[in-house]
């Protein structure tokens, strides 16, 4: 067990290191992206560019620049080139909004997916199943930002059902917090409800034909107990795995679109701004932040898998 954890932690660090180097290189190899030239302005003379360059430490060799940047990230001193703000502080400030959004959406998407998938499988081929299948397919075929924009138009403007405006901290006003987040939660959840409910449906239909289900019926369990305790529970294992991976992706940058349209000042919104201004320090910061959660949840999933299913030996990766 200890060996497994140590190995996975080392793997995580290696992946994060590789990612930071790649982002760093993308921005230093790509032509015309010299930050000093951009900050100095369009018609700056070479002397000014050189001075800006020296101020930011851009005249030093690349490995030194990289090491300095990493040191600043871990000591929390990294400043953005463009606006001269502390990157770590900005990410830190964005965490409450991003986590409120992602956790709330995750609760909704799991609850609805289980409900829809269960109903679909129990009424396979009937009207309920058809309707839910169409709904799920539309959900996974919809651009997230489009759904956000349409909901914003119809539910905050046409019918003023929900308040507009950005994130309200939970500690200040719990009701305002929830009412401002209902639309974003729902928007972010739709895609996953579609995916998960379809997957749960097919898993449950497969599980219905398994021997253990017949055994459960034969020993006299009620149909309800068979469905929930045996069929549903066994069909949930792949869903839980997927949930871990997807939750990591959503926290790690998948929420950019939702945060942008609803103007929630989370990490995603900050990432969007940083990218548009081609600002390397915030970009490295948010990419590492995102990659950290993706890798972390990957590891947690592998670990949970090994605990749930003893056939998978620790130390080997779970089947992809």
């Amino acid at each position, binding site marked *: 067990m200890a060996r497994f954890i140590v190995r996975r932690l080392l793997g995580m660090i290696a*992946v994060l290191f590789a990612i930071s180097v790649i982002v760093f290189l993308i921005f230093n190899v*790509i032509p*015309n992206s010299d930050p000093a030239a951009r900050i100095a302005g369009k018609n700056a003379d070479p002397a000014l560019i050189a001075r800006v360059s020296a101020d930011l430490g851009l005249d030093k060799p690349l490995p030194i620049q990289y090491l300095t940047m990493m040191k600043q990230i871990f000591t929390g001193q990294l400043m953005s080139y463009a606006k001269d703000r502390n990157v770590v502080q900005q990410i830190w400030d964005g965490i409450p909004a991003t986590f409120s959004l992602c956790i709330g959406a995750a609760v909704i998407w799991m609850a609805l997916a289980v409900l829809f998938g269960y109903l679909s499988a129990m009424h396979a081929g009937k009207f309920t199943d058809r309707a839910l299948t169409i709904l799920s*397919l539309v959900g996974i075929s919809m651009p997230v930002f*489009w759904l956000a924009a349409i909901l914003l*138009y119809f539910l905050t403007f046409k019918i003023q059902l929900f308040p507009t405006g950005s994130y309200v901290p939970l500690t200040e006003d719990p009701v305002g917090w929830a009412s401002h987040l209902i639309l974003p939660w729902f928007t972010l959840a739709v895609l996953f409800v579609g995916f998960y409910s379809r997957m749960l449906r097919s898993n449950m239909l497969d599980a219905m034909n398994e021997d253990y289900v017949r055994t459960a019926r034969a020993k006299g369990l009620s149909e309800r107990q068979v469905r929930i305790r045996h069929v549903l529970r066994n069909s949930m294992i792949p869903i839980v795995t997927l949930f871990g991976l997807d939750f990591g992706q959503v926290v790690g940058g998948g929420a950019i679109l939702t945060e942008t349209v609803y103007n929630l000042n989370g990490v995603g919104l900050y990432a*969007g701004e940083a990218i548009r201004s*081609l600002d390397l320090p915030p970009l490295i910061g948010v*990419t590492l932040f995102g990659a950290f959660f993706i890798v972390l949840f990957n590891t947690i999933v592998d670990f949970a898998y090994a605990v749930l299913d003893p056939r998978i030996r620790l130390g080997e990766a779970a089947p992809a």
Partner: protein
Amino acid sequence: MVATVGEMEAPGEPPLPAGVPKSQIQGRSPWYLAWLRLRRNKVALFCAGVFVLIVLFCLAAPLWAEHVAHTGPNENHITEKVLIDGQPTNVVGPDGTPIGPGLHGQYLLGADQNGRDVMVRLMYGGRTSIYIGLAAAAVTTVLSVIVALLAGYYRGWIDSVLSRIMDVIWAFPVLLLGIALGTALAVGGLKIGPLAIAGDSIWIPIMIIGFVYVPYMARPIRGEILALREKEFIEAAVAQGKGPLRIMFSELLPNIISTIIVFFTLNIANNMLLESALSFLGAGVRPPNASWGTMIADGYEMIYTAPHLTIVPGLMIIATVLSLNVFGDGLRDALDPRAKIRLEH
């Protein structure tokens, strides 16, 4: 895999009556059996039809532009007036509100804030969006198959190295990677050896979208190759003295072709969604060129006064992506009824 499919009876076909001479029994290829299964799936066929119609609709863009709308996709008409119900009307009103949809040849779907004909832009934009979806799917498929064949055939350290690279790309937040590359490459273009792409070319989003989805396709295909690699026919091929390239492309590749076809179809749908997202965030198709994503981005600025600018291109994306998703599912059921391949989003 191919051999076992051949032994199966096509569903819906009555078994041959006893006493029929063997010469009358026709051989059926796996492809023919798959077609028989697909033919029974009316919903999937309907969706394939919808997709073909959408493609034809977009291909007809120049015809509509020339003969009905009399304007190109990027031509502004902010200060002009058109005759609507016999009355000259401002294309873009004094308060900046463009004319809405209505039954008139010009501006059938209204105009946008620059006085451009939304119908014309929708048709041209669809060409761009579908073209990017197809081309990026081709890029992803070629790269994934190469990675999967190399990793699955050679195994050992080659597999380890390729798999670690896939892990790293996998751990990148997809949208962040896409936007970062898109924004950065738009400034200076891309130069890899003899290959040079200008910053405003639609090949920039194509390469980016094609690249970020490689791990999602390469991983499952690699798994299939690893399983096939253990089969006797590969051993036989090695014993016959066939070289690695020959085995990869004439022994392994034909056996994964049905998986590739399904992935390709579903990948087009995913690519179109990613294209729209990148364009919406300003890192995809460059203005003034139209794609459904850029049209939503432009329209979103005016959502409260002219919602049709946002709604219409979104509905087109949904129709296209939905039809591809349903058709892709149908293809999968037809080509390999027992397989559970699924493309991650």
